[in-house]
């Protein structure tokens, strides 16, 4: 990590719903240009960590900086792909319209998207292989297609850091490969990508950086160095390898 710029820096972050802490005293530095997985069991606070970093959930303590400055001042550098299930896909709108929403942040209040924004949205749709579906009502898209639309919406933001909440959930193999290829391209372009991930098998193949989380941060670092039985056992509370090979 030495010598590398920190894209994201989280200090003493603590989040609690009611009384029970969901995240406890998280310190986390994510270097620029990594493709990082956040792994941990259900209820470990993976989504909450992302949401707290993005200011969607208010932490009870701690601070987040993006490239050394408070997140509020660096919003334009950050894009977010929420969980697919977090919105109502029967909403009366089309794929291109959803992607266009990614430009709203740079437009600011009141100003409407124009040709330039439309062009950016079309390009993003093409990148995720959804150009043919641009005028499709979003409820008529398959789960994988909906996920790609969400990804395109984030791509339009042209950010430096991408946060994604379980982008591979409920998508087929074709979409999973398409998405991971885009993520790898983003890394190649020097972007930082943080992904909440569930499938431990694919971690070494997809990611180069990993954070183990279970309310507390267990470990964070390069996949090659820290993705091992020891950390898996600490995070999931079972001897992972033994449990799998039973």
């Amino acid at each position: 990590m030495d010598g590398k710029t920190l894209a994201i820096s989280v200090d003493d972050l603590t989040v609690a719903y009611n009384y029970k802490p969901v995240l406890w005293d998280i310190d986390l530095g994510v270097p620029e240009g990594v493709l990082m997985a956040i792994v941990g069991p259900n209820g470990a606070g993976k989504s909450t960590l992302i949401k707290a970093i993005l200011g969607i959930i208010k932490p009870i303590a701690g601070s987040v900086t993006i490239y050394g400055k408070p997140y509020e001042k660096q919003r334009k550098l950050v894009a977010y792909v929420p969980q697919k299930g977090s919105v109502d896909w029967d909403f009366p709108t089309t794929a291109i319209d959803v992607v266009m929403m990614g430009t709203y942040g740079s437009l600011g209040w009141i100003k409407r998207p124009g040709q330039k924004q439309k062009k950016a949205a079309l390009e993003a749709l093409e990148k995720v292989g959804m150009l043919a579906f641009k005028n499709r009502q979003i409820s008529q898209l398959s789960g994988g297609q909906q996920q790609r639309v969400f990804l395109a919406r984030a791509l339009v933001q042209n950010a430096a850091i991408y946060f994604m909440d379980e982008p591979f959930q409920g998508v087929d193999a074709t979409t999973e490969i398409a998405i991971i290829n885009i993520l790898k391209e983003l890394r190649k372009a020097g972007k930082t990508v943080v992904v909440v991930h569930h499938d431990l098998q694919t971690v070494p193949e997809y990611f180069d950086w990993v954070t183990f989380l279970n309310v507390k941060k267990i470990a964070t670092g390069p996949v090659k160095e820290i993705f091992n039985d020891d950390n898996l056992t600490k995070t999931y509370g079972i001897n992972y390898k033994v449990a799998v090979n039973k």
Partner: protein
Amino acid sequence: MTISEYFELLFTDYTLRTITLGTAVLGAICGMLGSFAVLRKESLLGDAISHAALPGIALAFLITGAKDTNVLLIGALVSGLIGTFWIRGMTTKTHLKSDTALGLVLSLFFGFGMLLLTFIQKQPNANQAGLDKYLFGQAATLVEKDVTLMVIVTGICLFIVLLFWKEFKILLFDADYTKTLGFNTRFIDILITFFIVLAIVLGLQTVGVVLMSAMLLAPAAAARQWTNKLGVMIFLAAVFGAFSGVFGTAISASQNNLSTGPVIVLVAAVFVVFSFIFSPGRGLLFRQIRFRQNRRDLQLKKTLQFMYGIAKTHENVSHPHAIRILNNFQGFTKKTLQQLEEKDWITLSGQQWALTNEGFSEAKNLYNQQENHE
């Protein structure tokens, strides 16, 4: 008076014109804002707010002793807003789900309002009569001043909706994401909610506390059936609402003893039922028709597939076969064969059938998803 007489009178009779204009404008603003409520899955919020407005009306009367509509409506607005505030507070600060919070606020405020109303009715004050019209509404009491207020509020509301169109849309679709883009979602939220409360309060005089939520929901629910575009949906909802207002007023004016509010709501309900059945995209009727068509289509293709299985064993795909050999296969009828011939997939001659080249290639690619998908 018949309905046609009513429409003639509309151009000459001042009172009738005022009332019709009032109900039309009310229908339009309710349809417009009701769309937001429906899309936010807050359909019942309108019901709770309208009931919550009742104690405000009663208190405003008790405090001022006057029955001035505007004063009563301000009372309604204040208590409606307090009710909304409580609902929001309950859902964010306690473990209660929003339906419970809505139900609690609705019954609590309505109960308190009814208590105050009965208390007022026992008062030795000649002025008290007629407050109960706010329960079921009485369009006949609309005067020009009321309608002017409605038009102004609707105008402002329309302006705000157009101004913050993009912000409203993204908040309705994905609130968390909107927050990450740097928008003050709380402000947008308050703006939408405030206008919904305002529209409800405006409608109380005409439609009444009890039926007000139908004015919000029915046009929006009907409009959603016809379109997949937010703008079109809101426009249609406003149009449906306005028509419900006009037709409702017309029907109630042309018959004796038909209260306007309920009739307007019933007309709106007719729009809903009609839309649920007859809308081309989502309606039950067309869905059923499409379902049957698909099933017929599948049957046709199944037969074709079967023929393909026979034909591909021959070098010449168009080699004729006896129709009899299809008999073992269920789902084949004379009609199926005729339809296959109409599509130029097979040729029939006497008791024989033969696949055409088109039919052969169609059958070959039938379940090849990659090619059929786009």
